[in-house]
């Protein structure tokens, strides 16, 4: 699975540039399916590799799935995960991990 490879690639580097990651998703809509799959399949691996890092998963009905990344000094960046599948969600996560704030 491409997503698993990406997650392995991220490894314990979540806290390299980031301070906090937030995932907003809807519990039932089709647009959030990929995000839901990503959490179900890869969240545990990600968290085990980064046990102190806050990965806030906030489900709310009817919202568009979004990935929020917070860097130092309160700078935040968001990526819409609308209609993405789990692999694309993983890629989005990778991009915020590697981005310089």
């Amino acid at each position, binding site marked *: 699975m491409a997503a698993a490879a990406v997650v392995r690639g991220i490894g314990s580097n979540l806290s390299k540039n980031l*301070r*906090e990651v*937030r995932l*907003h998703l809807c*519990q039932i809509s089709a647009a959030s399916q990929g995000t839901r799959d990503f*959490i*179900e399949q890869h*969240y*545990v691996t990600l*968290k*085990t590799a980064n*046990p*102190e890092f*806050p*990965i*806030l*998963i*906030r*489900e*709310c*009905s009817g*919202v568009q799935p979004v990935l*929020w990344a*917070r860097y*130092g*000094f*309160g700078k*935040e960046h*968001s990526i819409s995960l609308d209609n993405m599948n789990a692999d694309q969600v993983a890629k989005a996560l990778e991009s915020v991990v590697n981005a310089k704030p």
Partner: protein
Amino acid sequence: MLRLPAVSRALAGAAHSQGSIAITNNVRTSARASSNMVEVFVDGKPVMVEPGTTVLQTCEKVGVQIPRFCYHDRLSVAGNCRMCLVEIEKAPKPVAACAMPVMKGWNILTNSEKTRKAREGVMEFLLSNHPLDCPICDQGGECDLQDQSMMFGADRSRFTEGKRAVEDKNIGPLIKTIMTRCIHCTRCVRFASEVAGVEDLGTTGRGNSMQIGTYVEKMFMSELSGNVIDLCPVGALTSKPYAFTTESIDVLDAVGSNIVVSTRGGEVMRILPRLNEDLLKYENILSPFTHTHAISQLFQGSEVGAIAGGMVDAEALVALKDLLNRLDSDTLCTEEIFPMAGAGTDLRSNYLLNSRITGIEECDLMLLVGTNPRYEAPLFNARVRKSWLHNELQVAMVGHKVDLSYSYNHLGETTQVLQEIAAGTHPFCKVLAQAKKPVVVVGSSALQREDGAAIFKAVSTIAQNSRASSGVEEGWKVLNVLHRVASQVAALDLGYKRGVDAIRKNPPKVLFLLGADADCITRADLPKDSFIIYQGHHGDVGAVMADVILPGAAYTEKNGTYVNTEGRAQQTRVAVTAPGMAREDWKILRAISELAGVTLPYDTVDEVRRRLEEVSPNLVRYDDVEESNYFKQAHELSKAVNQSLLAAPLVPPQLTVKDFYMTDPISRASQTMAKCVKAATEGAASVDEPSIC
């Protein structure tokens, strides 16, 4: 007229709740039961109702309010006031509408000659012994007797006899009793016995010499005692520390119960004056100052940390978080600890009351771990008691033995018992495996211990095991956490760290205390020349150790968002304006951010709420609970936790009623609460009251 808002709210409540409300409250008709519906006529208008519906409920369905005193839709039916008598066509006698189930083909005449005569007669009897206290009675204007005598009573009196008088009873410092006004509807008796579970109130004597009271001088010792004030239809039971109202929510526990706030001339419960001028302590001399001077230089290059207390609204929490994040600090902590290990607070399902409060009415087995819900969340406990009474709920407890007002299976108080249940070796596991809708509730006080993570792991294992066992539906949630402070869930939703360990590990130079009065961090834990800012409304401990005190607003003085233990976001509204220079907390933080050079990007409450939505969208979904999932993932992560359970027994901090009254800064500052504690420990007579009516 008759408390219509209360009635329509009750009907709405009947529609919302999923479980069975045992007392025949089936006013809503369901399509399934249409085959055995009964046709009845109300004043000639036909209406279909389920069999078993009473005449009173049938009339309410059509929109006709029948006057009553003793009937209450949440209590059992008594039928002793006789005010609800209505005529049924072709029946010889009028029937008590609250108690009589309808029969097919009845024509209920709610305004006929006989009905009106019955009402006038009953009203005349009730008023014959009722004292002429209206001008001095607290209930004036909201008195059922006044309203109903205007609508249904006779216009002239023929009373020339003498009235009887009854001695006042002392049942505690919260309830003022003037028993002469009592009309013996017995609502208070039924409430105490059924809902509160405390069988203290009763009737003595009969006829003219009937009295309601505790017979021997005894305090009505229950955490729900104040509710009888709302129940009493006349001015017999009123509030001792009293007055006039606004709607808000209660933030003194984490249930977020909707309340109506009482104020008098700008003050609510507290009696001690609040600090409402900014003060800077300079070498122990307090002198007034203005914000600009100290604060703009304060944050230059220093490490900042913050602790949030138990009654902070979500707007202030997010403003504080943004402020500190912009100063490159992540050291934001809550006073209440929650285990960091495993998934921690990433997954909402880990820290919410997932089954919801209404879910209690559906469940068939409840396991309480290390909590005393009677005093930590009394309304939650009342719901459990209701389920225990009407829905055959079995309750078991692991923790110190306490009186919960209902009987339960006490499994023990050691962590050993918890471990055995988690491992599957305890005999209780068989009972758990057979339950169709089990619920496990762990109290937040149990998670405050050093082995909190291990306790959580054990509870999570128990929950997962019972889910896996036969009979549990797919969507049913087993694991629940019962919080004790109102701001905890919002803080966890926003991403605060739990417990002040982070501050102990990296003591900051500047510490911001937002309503933090639980004495978690003292000066000794911080570097020598650290600067402490306290922002709050009632600071006792926190304000004493601060260098700067900024007066914030209490929950009754601001429009704030609080999230209750179920995860339901609710708002408080302004009931009184904050005194003096006090401001809403987020506005103070916004001002500080400007002085510190990192201006926050919001100027109005709506903009703050839009920011709340960016962090966690459920915070602005008012009055709704968002489902949270991923229990399996949370459990997997918690299994990896390597902590072992300590031998210390699970004892919740509030054990008896005297621990109930003073648990947070607002109640600690209240004279009335102090009287309650004194009465609870030394008896009702020990509290001396001024002898005014």
